[in-house]
């Protein structure tokens, strides 16, 4: 009985639903505020994404005549569930509520689902703008998935002494003994590559080719309104928390202080720092890239960095 209650607590409140939704909404609010300050504007209040979410909940939901109703409405929810699941599996320092259930490969699969939900939902809406948007989203997935897989392999090779490990437990324990992974100089290129993967995965500004609102009317989201749109916006906010959290777990893990609340605060501060470097700064200083520029950038520069790090780790330098 207590076990079921504990698991429910994990899923619904602390590393799961409530915690990651709040953290995601506030982090994306801070992101918007900081971008505004860097552009010399006052900017919206930090709570703006929360207002946006609740406003969209109160709006009318229009389902286009050309749309497949069931797929159109379930796609955002599927993406949301998979993002909350990822948040459950990411260890906060040495606190791993679902230890042993899932490893890094599961995270890799789960990270695909929100983007796929966007593609499926866009395709179900029957809009030509969504058609252009989903083809761009597919290009983005192909672009960042390759370096991301190599990065995870590199971390696994470093942490799995002798072999390759995909277990979060072993990666965190390795970091607890030998210091955070980012302190190994052979991991630095992989860390930089991961920082560059985050904005594309989260659909943040220089790489938001799929949702280019000035070119293709927000792409896959073109026909969405009201509640399903609110869930898609929530997914985007969750990604601004989940992706930096994954970086923190893979590269900035370690001993922690032993007190959970302090660990959580440190973890959130690290997530904020990662988000600032990887999402806020590029958003403030870069214009949106073209589709082929994004693809080329990820398959040459970012993949090159990841492979460089992988080779160094493999040679045991």
């Amino acid at each position: 009985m207590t076990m079921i209650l504990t698991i429910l607590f994990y899923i619904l409140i602390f590393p799961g639903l409530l915690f990651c939704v709040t953290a995601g909404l506030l982090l994306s609010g801070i992101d918007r505020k900081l971008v505004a300050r860097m552009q010399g504007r006052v900017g919206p209040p930090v709570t703006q994404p929360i207002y946006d979410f609740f406003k969209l909940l109160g709006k009318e939901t229009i389902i286009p005549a050309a749309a497949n109703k069931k797929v159109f409405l379930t796609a955002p929810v599927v993406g949301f569930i998979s993002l909350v699941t990822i948040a459950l599996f990411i260890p906060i320092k040495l606190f791993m509520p679902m230890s042993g259930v899932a490893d890094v490969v599961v995270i890799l699969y789960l990270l695909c689902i929100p983007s796929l939900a966007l593609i499926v939902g866009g395709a179900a809406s029957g809009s030509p703008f969504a058609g252009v948007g989903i083809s761009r989203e597919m290009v983005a997935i192909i672009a960042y998935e390759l370096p991301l897989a190599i990065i995870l392999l590199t971390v696994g090779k470093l942490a799995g002494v002798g072999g390759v490990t995909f277990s979060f437990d072993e990666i965190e324990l390795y970091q607890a003994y030998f210091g955070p992974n980012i302190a190994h100089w052979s991991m630095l290129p992989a860390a930089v590559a991961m920082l560059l993967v985050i904005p594309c995965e989260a659909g943040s500004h220089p790489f938001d080719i799929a949702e280019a609102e000035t070119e293709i009317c927000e792409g896959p989201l073109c026909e969405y309104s009201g509640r399903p749109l609110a869930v898609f916006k929530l997914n985007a906010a969750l990604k601004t928390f989940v992706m930096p959290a994954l970086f923190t777990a893979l590269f900035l893990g370690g001993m922690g202080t032993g007190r959970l609340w302090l660990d959580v605060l440190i973890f959130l501060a690290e997530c904020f720092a990662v988000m600032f470097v990887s999402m806020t700064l590029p958003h403030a200083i870069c214009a949106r890239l073209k589709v082929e520029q994004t693809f080329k950038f990820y398959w040459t520069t970012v993949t090159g960095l990841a492979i460089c790090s992988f080779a160094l780790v493999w040679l045991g330098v």
Partner: protein
Amino acid sequence: MFKKLIKKSAGKSPWLFHVNAGSCNGCDIEIVACLTPRYDAERFGFKLAGTPRHADIIVVSGPVTSQTKERVLRVLAQAPEPKVVVAVGSCPQSCNVFKGSYSVEGPLKNLTHVDVEVCGCAPKPEAIMAGLVEATKILREKRGEN
């Protein structure tokens, strides 16, 4: 619990969709000026949406020419309720210098309900901002009724 939050949020995150109904581009530039660092409409939560499906406030500029009339009405129909229509510039109010032209079908209020009118040719960004803030008040009232 959520009802209160939804009602509170209704006026705090108004997203704009801008329709050019045959405008000379003067008002459009002034609307864009509202989003620049000097006036920064985003501090009230305003955001330029890419599609009418996301919009709370439809901003119309221009005297509504015969070519754009049908499109304007279609865009207004595509926006989900509750929505507010803001007419920016003298053209949608009175057709301005284009009044009497064979190709002009305005003013806008003959075609649809207009909630807020911002006059001027072109209106100052301050005036547009005042109009938009007025529109958020109407949005909140409309949310309260529903």
